[in-house]
């Protein structure tokens, strides 16, 4: 009988000790973030979706060889006048991308023609939409590094009746209202 009451006492004490931790935290500042209305600021090294700049690219294919999952492909033509390669098209398959930064590290141009951005909210409803292609003769939608992808993403949102706002690829993220 004594052992029984001791057990009841021990368990009750255990519960109260645990609840004491909870009670203490009731008066501490909250660490919860109300995503998507608030967003945490990301570090400058954050590896988000890739961005590409066709006007800087020299078509050396270093990134194609560096990519472990073969998500980058490009085609170029030799320009007889300048003896350099002109980019015809450049494709990144975001469905395959590992976000490992190996392509950015080997890119020889300055600034890097392929690099990670801080974009992490990337979702599409069609598998083909994951393949992005850039062409030098097609104008890039203004706004961010991320122009073309973003334009496609926005168009999809508008189709679904959602007004999406970018958190910008180079600005620190402030609380964004949907």
């Amino acid at each position, binding site marked *: 009988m004594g052992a029984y009451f001791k*057990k009841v006492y*021990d*368990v009750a*004490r*255990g*519960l109260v*000790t*645990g609840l*004491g*931790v*909870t009670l203490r935290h009731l008066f501490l500042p909250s*660490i919860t973030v109300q995503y998507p209305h608030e967003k945490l600021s*990301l*570090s*400058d*090294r*954050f*590896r988000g979706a890739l961005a590409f700049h066709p006007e800087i690219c020299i078509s050396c294919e270093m990134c194609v060889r*560096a*990519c*472990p999952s073969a998500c980058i492909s490009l085609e170029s033509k030799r320009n007889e006048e300048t003896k350099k390669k002109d980019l015809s098209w450049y494709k990144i398959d975001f469905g395959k991308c*590992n*976000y*490992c*930064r*190996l392509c950015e*590290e*080997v890119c020889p141009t300055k600034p890097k023609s392929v690099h*990670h951005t801080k974009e992490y909210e990337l979702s599409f409803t069609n598998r083909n939409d994951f393949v992005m292609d850039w062409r030098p003769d097609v104008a890039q939608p203004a706004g961010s590094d991320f122009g073309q992808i973003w334009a496609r993403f926005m168009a999809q949102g508008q189709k679904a009746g959602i007004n999406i706002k970018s958190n910008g690829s180079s600005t620190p993220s402030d609380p964004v209202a949907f």
Partner: protein
Amino acid sequence: MLSGPSFETKMERVSETEMLLNMGPQHPSTHGVLRVVLKLDGEVVTGAAMDLGYLHRGVEKLAENRTYGQFTILTDRDDYLCAMLNNWSYALAVEKLLKVEIPQRAEYLRVIVGELNRIASHLLFIGTFGIDIGAFTPFLYAFGREREMILDLFEQLCGARITYNYVRIGGVSNDVPDGWVEKARKFVAHMRNCLKEYDDLLSYNPIFMDRTKGIGVLKKEMAISYGVTGPNLRASGVPMDLRKDAPYGIYSKFQFTAAVRQNGDCWDRYMVRRDEIAESCSILDQALEGLVAGEIMGKVPKANLRPPAGESYAQLEGARGVLGVYIVSDGGLSPYRLHLRAPSFINLAMLQDMLKGWKVADVVAILGSIDIVLGEVDR
């Protein structure tokens, strides 16, 4: 099929008073996709067989057509809870082939990120083990607060939160950003205080102790015969820790003791990991103090890395046990053969003997306490 030929041989015969029960593959306490086929006599487990391979991606085969540098990112996805240690063990094996010298600063950074990742992995264990037993609150503290802090530190260091690709062949990929060491120091101090909270919430809670003390006892002899390593082995009273017994990197410079418990039950396996967090904190203190200036990358060719023909095996103390990488090189751009010694896979094998004689309700506690990661089991 419940009673396919493979399971009949594993389980001997199912008598008329016994039944087979499938636990998983989609069961919240298996922490992934693992099927455990239990043979039950009433509520008592009389046999168990594991069905693996639901998460098999053929990483070892994929290595054969990736270059040495490219394979690092696949080791991230192997044991995704301590990817830094996976990167490190692979880098060690390739460096052994290349016979390259690692700069001191890189060695220190490896120890720092390795120990932080070990803490992160054990925090996830504490959280999910609590959930398995029925305590939800510790999860919010261990997983949602402290582990997030570590992931934030990693994000500032290398840009990723889970798959780091940070420890590279020959060194590490990035130097620490400004103020990072200070933040890490602050975290270590915070972590020490948190251990007291976990003790209040979980470790010494009488309900938790009733569910785990004396349950799922793993005898020292059985642990050794099954090749169990890591915290599971140390909980059975065998003080084996590669950081002490076969120091790799610069671990011989640090003062620490391997956490050992004697009984080998679920509670001891939990407490060993809890003690290891404290131990990692003291290693981190020493490493952050001793962090020397200098290069972070050794002399390794960036492109066309061709290690000389030969073979190498490197191992380190992972969060779950001895993490080994065996590489055979034929002098080409990619490994001829690569094998990973995955501690989770080897630790899982003992479960078929360990579950015998325990109640169904204890199965979850025992499975949770050996802390497997299915990504590593199936590879």
